């Protein structure tokens, strides 16, 4: 398979990590040679702050998880650090006996564009627009590269980890 970097197997699922510049080739290979004709989902994930100490998951000492503390509940290793900030997971399905599924994964940094897969699976159109809108990942070759869920003039990409949750502080009547 073109551009394959590694194959991960976990929880019964196969993840194929590919080199980002060869994503389009890999997608074509998966669709034509391996028969994954159905693109189920494109999920973009932001890993900013993944292994830092003050995000969720770090209970116990400021230095991190303490193996002797009962609250670690047996999950005693630090999360594997990620090489780049964003991962794009393309969930593919082959519509045949056995329903084979695979996750095609590409890693990008902030500002790095990715090739659009609209020419391979037309359904990628709106999924990529959503990834651009909410995560700020650019897709080269996307015919309609616009925001889809937020307002057209919205600034920022809401689902990034450095974008605040927003909202209002809740006022309680007793405080007055």
């Amino acid at each position, binding site marked *: 398979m073109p551009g394959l970097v590694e194959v991960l197997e976990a929880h019964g699922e196969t993840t194929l990590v590919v080199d980002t510049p060869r994503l389009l080739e890999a997608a074509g290979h998966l669709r034509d040679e391996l028969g994954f004709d159905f693109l189920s989902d494109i999920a973009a994930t932001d890993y900013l702050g993944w292994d830092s100490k003050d995000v969720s998951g770090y209970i116990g000492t400021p230095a991190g998880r303490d193996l002797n503390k009962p609250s670690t509940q047996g999950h005693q290793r630090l999360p594997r650090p990620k090489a780049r900030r964003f991962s794009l997971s393309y969930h593919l399905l082959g519509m045949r006996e056995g329903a084979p599924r695979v996750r095609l994964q590409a890693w990008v940094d902030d500002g790095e564009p990715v090739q659009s897969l609209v020419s391979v699976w037309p359904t990628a159109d709106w999924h990529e627009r959503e990834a651009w809108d909410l995560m700020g990942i650019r897709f080269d070759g996307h015919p309609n590269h616009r925001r889809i869920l*937020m*307002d057209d003039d919205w600034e920022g990409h*809401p689902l990034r980890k450095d*974008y*605040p*949750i*927003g*909202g*209002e502080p*809740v006022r309680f009547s007793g405080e007055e």
Partner: protein
Amino acid sequence: MAIEEGKRLRDYGLQTERLLWPEKGPGVFEQEVAAIEQAVGLTTLAKAVAWAQTKSMWPDTFGLACCAIEMMSIVSSRYDIARFGMEAFRSSPRQADLLIVSGRVVHKMAAPLRQVYDQMLEPKWVIAMGACASSGGMFNNYTTLQGVDKIVAVDVHVPGCPPRPEALMEGIVRLHEKVVAGVPPAYEIRGVSS
């Protein structure tokens, strides 16, 4: 007519839970109404008009999210809002009296909501149905409007996520009682431009 001294809303026929607690003094709502300077005189004719307004207050089809499904079920035969003359949900806001904002309002939808509200003709009432319309509900975030009363003047808030059809009907009945008692629609009280 402001509320006369010593009289309370229930003396004007408004049935609320205060009926069960007669010793309770006037609450914030009643004091607020008493402080209204522009009084609406309720002559016999006005009383008749108010009564008629409640008997066929047509809602606008403004279903947004989950609450819309429960709003649809008050039209169904079990909860039957046709008893109140309200089964005619108008699609055009120009023909509607009541705007039941059912569902979460996000910033992108706030402009169409305000536009629809503006297109309605006076007198018009707004029910904020559900927790999301009343206060943003469980979605305290960058995109959800924390309560639709930030942009329109709300008469009745109905709590619930989603409120049962009976709860929505209770809200509608309370609104009717409000109107019959002579309370002006919310845009006059709140001073929100309409």
